[in-house]
């Protein structure tokens, strides 16, 4: 029998043995090291798909770091667009450029020229344009933004693992300084100005460079932090390239996929987790997408998360069931200070009435 490199490869190296038959999600994700270990403090950022992991991590006994959340007295109030789904209230981050600039801003190393939009009595954050409760004055905007960036830095400084989910390569940036917006100005807020807002479709080398720089920046103050890179399987909602959205989406995902692997291979303690492959590979036969062929189904999320956690080193077996009940149980009860305040006010209204 002839010897060649393929002879010694395990079954998982062969499509016929690992995909055509006997496909196992957990095998796809098997890496050199566990993704999470017991006691990890996890931070995540990225596209909306990134927020799916939070309940699973918490149920698995991992700490999902939250350094910025609504004040307990206001915890029952709604928020928009996933701003409460991440470690700090940065919301969905779709491009590597915006992700890098968030860290630069949090570290005080970048201050975008176009850093606020004034509209209808509100001062809107171009990097969080959908916030439900924006500032109403420049002074308040400065205070709220500083608080947000401080909380963001705290999250990235305290994490033992940071999960970055790369969403897309198409982005709109400021012509003045390259500041990357999460959405095209004029869509959620702001006003589109072709002289000021420029379309950019990042290349693989640009994404790689962004992530490498981001990792380097975070490790200045958190040298031992590990990174897990994933690519969101959710296709583009729309493209500005003029191509068919399927073609544009494939380009975006391919670029991100290449960049993620290149960074994982070249930078220590950066791993790639194949969520993209688990959901979009032919073995899934499309069942991991909803009817719109874009959003990932609960089954798809479960397949991804089960695989991720099975390849982690956790304290005990995690329960693979989703746990919405547990989440609602974690909602803060009415704070004691508020209950006491309310009781005093009510009692006084009754007492004063005795004077009339």
């Amino acid at each position: 029998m002839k010897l060649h490199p393929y002879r010694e490869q395990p079954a998982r190296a062969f499509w016929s043995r690992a995909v055509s038959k006997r496909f196992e999600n957990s095998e796809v994700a098997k890496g050199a090291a566990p993704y999470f270990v017991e006691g990890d403090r996890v931070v995540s950022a990225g596209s909306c798909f990134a927020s799916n992991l939070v309940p699973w991590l918490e149920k698995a006994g991992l700490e999902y770091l939250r350094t910025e959340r609504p004040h307990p007295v206001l915890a029952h109030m709604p928020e928009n667009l996933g701003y409460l789904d991440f470690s700090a209230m940065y919301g969905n981050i779709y491009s590597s450029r915006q992700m890098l600039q968030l860290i630069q801003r949090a570290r005080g190393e970048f201050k975008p020229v176009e850093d606020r939009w004034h509209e209808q009595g509100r001062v809107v954050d171009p990097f969080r344009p959908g916030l439900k409760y924006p500032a109403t004055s420049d002074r308040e905007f400065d205070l709220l933004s500083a608080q947000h960036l401080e909380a963001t830095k705290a999250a990235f400084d305290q994490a033992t693992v940071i999960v970055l989910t790369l969403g897309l390569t198409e982005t709109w940036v400021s012509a003045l300084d390259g500041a990357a917006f999460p959405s095209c100005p004029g869509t959620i807020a702001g006003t589109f100005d072709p002289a000021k807002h420029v379309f950019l479709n990042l290349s693989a080398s640009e994404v790689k460079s962004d992530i490498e720089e981001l990792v380097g920046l975070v490790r200045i103050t958190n040298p031992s932090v590990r990174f897990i890179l994933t690519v969101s399987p959710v296709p583009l909602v729309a493209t500005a390239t003029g191509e068919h959205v399927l073609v544009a989406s494939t380009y975006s995902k391919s670029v991100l996929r290449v960049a993620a692997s290149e960074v994982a291979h070249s930078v220590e303690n950066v791993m790639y987790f194949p969520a993209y492959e688990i959901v979009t590979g032919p073995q899934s036969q499309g069942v991991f997408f909803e009817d719109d062929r874009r959003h990932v189904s609960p089954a798809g999320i479960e397949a991804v998360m089960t695989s991720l956690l099975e390849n982690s080193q956790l304290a005990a077996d995690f329960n693979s069931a989703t746990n919405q009940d547990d989440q609602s149980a974690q909602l803060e009860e009415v704070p004691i200070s508020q209950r006491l305040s309310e009781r005093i006010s009510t009692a006084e209204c009754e007492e004063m009435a005795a004077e009339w």
Partner: protein
Amino acid sequence: MPLVTSRTEWTLHGDPNADVIIAGDSHGGALQMAEALQSNDVEFKTARVFAKNPEAAVPLDAEYWNYVRNFARNKRVVVVWKGNQHNSAFLIRSNPPIKVLGLNGLSSKEQDGQWISRSALKDFFTPSFDGLDSTLFDLSRFSKVVVVGTPPPKRDDFVLKAISNESYFRNFTIETGRDPSEISVERLSNRVALWEILQEILADIARVAMVPFIPSPESARDQDGALKREYCYNDATHANAEYGLLIRALISEWIREEQ
């Protein structure tokens, strides 16, 4: 004729022939008490629609306002809408502490705490104004209506002194396993900022309903925006009859301008 409901019994306190009807919540009490400080030769007489037994007062509802409308026809109505929402949620310092920017751009100099946007707080308080707009539209059809601002917060020491000997305060802190001496009143700058937000909402709703708004007078506030001591009723949240006199003077101005 009193209105007996399943919740309480509403009636008119004062002269049935009064020129001005005071309607609304407990802060209207200062206006009512103020009349007693005035001579008989007053510019206008007031009567207040409230629970027959004030200690049995319940939150005001549509039945109450319909009852007010009966008395108010062809008279002037002073609407006092709630006014303790900031105290109800934030009188006692919360954990984490809050920080709210005041209208004048000032805030607490203390470093700790979480900034909360004024727009979030506005949304937080807005449900407590549900029904005010329709009430104003409704009353305005047959009466001349004005909305008055509610009194600003009191200084910390006044509040603490007022509540520290109260049994409900002691019982509550014991129930929740806290030492009463460890309870702090919310920072004055925050309470003033919260109160300002309430006044903004009141003024906005009045403007939309095309009803005049009489803000709480600047002269009643000290250098930090708190209610001056001489205008404090002996509790944590209400103003006294002297404050009521200040408001009566402003109501007089409104009446003169109307005429």
